[in-house]
């Protein structure tokens, strides 16, 4: 397809813009999720969002295309799951709480979708995304969320830095760690719901974890980590869409595979760098 004809198709342009917004959004959030060891919680919320989307579709009796009301119901449901995880984590390990809540929410969603399947058509779009079907509403939601995430990151930069190091030390330094934790969970909840359209509920967690992992493997300063994470996320989204177009495969999995490729590259580079830095001296001195 030639470049001139590409821009003639509105759905392709919308897909490109949606991919770019989502990449920046996930790229900014991802380092904090990785550094605070909340990857499993993010994955859990992504799965739990299916319950919210299913509830929205079930209550509103709408078709397979989510509306603004569907997103609001889904967001409230996912926030409820996040609060439940926080509540259960008081008595059990936090990963146990995440594991218990997300499977329940996911099963709830599958049950509701099974009850409404006749009117919903292709349900795999919810699971694996359909970026080419992105609507202007989702573009605006993604843009708004990205602006909120960037602004929150800028305003609370120093707090976020202290929080990623140690929660109790940050509290002693006057950082509102509870607000930061819930703020990040709310942003993740909103992101996974809107990102469902792009990569689906099963794959969105990859975009919330892999770019941050790439950043953490590649830089030693927080600014560098966030910058590399955002760049890796953008490269993954754009190259994934290009690969999807070229190989005629679904864009969601292609984006995630490209993100995993970035992770592998960063992992290999990190190992090579460490091996060079810590090369032991030869046991037998050479003449």
């Amino acid at each position: 397809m030639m470049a001139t004809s590409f821009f003639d198709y509105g759905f392709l342009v919308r897909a490109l813009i949606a991919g770019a917004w989502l990449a920046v959004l996930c790229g900014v959030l991802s380092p904090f999720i990785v550094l605070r060891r909340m990857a499993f919680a993010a994955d859990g919320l992504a799965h739990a969002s299916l319950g919210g989307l299913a509830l929205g579709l079930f209550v509103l009796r709408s078709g397979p295309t989510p509306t603004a009301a569907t997103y609001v119901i889904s967001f409230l449901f996912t926030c409820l799951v996040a609060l439940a995880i926080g509540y259960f984590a008081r008595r059990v390990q936090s990963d146990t709480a995440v594991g218990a809540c997300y499977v329940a929410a996911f099963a709830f969603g599958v049950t509701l979708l099974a009850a409404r399947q006749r009117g919903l058509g292709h349900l795999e779009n919810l699971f694996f995304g359909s970026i080419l079907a992105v609507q202007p509403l989702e573009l605006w939601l993604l843009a708004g969320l990205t602006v909120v995430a960037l602004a929150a990151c800028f305003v609370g930069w120093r707090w976020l830095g202290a929080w990623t190091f140690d929660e109790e030390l940050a509290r002693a330094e006057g950082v509102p760690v509870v607000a930061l934790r819930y703020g990040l969970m709310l942003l993740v909840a909103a992101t996974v719901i809107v990102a469902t359209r792009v990569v689906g509920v099963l794959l969105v967690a990859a975009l919330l974890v892999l770019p941050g992992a790439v950043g953490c493997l590649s830089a030693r300063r927080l600014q560098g980590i966030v910058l590399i994470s955002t760049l890796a996320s953008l490269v993954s989204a754009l190259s994934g869409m290009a690969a999807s177009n070229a190989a005629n495969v679904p864009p969601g999995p292609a984006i995630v595979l490209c993100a995993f490729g970035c992770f592998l590259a960063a992992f290999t580079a990190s190992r090579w760098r460490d091996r060079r830095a810590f090369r032991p001296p030869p046991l037998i001195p050479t003449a």
Partner: protein
Amino acid sequence: MHATDCTALTVTGLTLDLDGRRILSGVSFTVRAGEFLGLIGPNGGGKTTLLRTLLGLLPSTGGSIAWADRDCGHPRLGYVPQRVGVDAHFPLAAAELVQQGADGLLPRFGARRREAQQRGDELLARVGLKRQAATSFVHLSGGQQRRLLLARALMRRPDVLLLDEPTAGVDAEGQEQFCGLLRELSREGITVILVSHDLPLITAHADRIACLNVTLHWHGHARELDAATVRAAYQCELQRYQLRQPINPTNP
């Protein structure tokens, strides 16, 4: 003694219950500005809990904590915890973590950023970690990590430093250097409250000692600490510890 007449901290009748168990009971003492206070006591005696309560991390059940008096103003607190909750792959470098300790909210740019970097470098040099500035926190030894946490706490320009067993697991030379640095800071006017199990070290460096075992058993000059006081606080003989200061022979 480098303490001034200005009171940095007044604790009155501090009581704290956790999960139905009394951890601190009627603890009262004062610390003067610039004083080096050593806090000793057996495990479970409430030393760390007292520090966390002073920092506002735990709510007290009763009593009061008053920082400074009206003339001195509210002090800025620096905290060096026993350990930090990072895993083996935490990537951030020493210099970055020290600079994060500075007050403020927004990221710094231009001259302010250079100023913070310069101060961070100075503090790293002061705690002997200049060469490790670019090293990841997790690649530092235990002793180096504690010194880095001290540099981070100093980045806030604190009036009071609270340290929770910073010399635990550190070799003898490292302990002496660390306490020597705390002594220097005390001379510069920073109030130091140090929790430690190392009685010879703490009696050698601290101005005053507080013996805590749920209640405050004793609070006085380091040179006046004797075996009977230690025995009462720890509720056992501590023959391993040869207190460096002479013990009052009339009070065995």
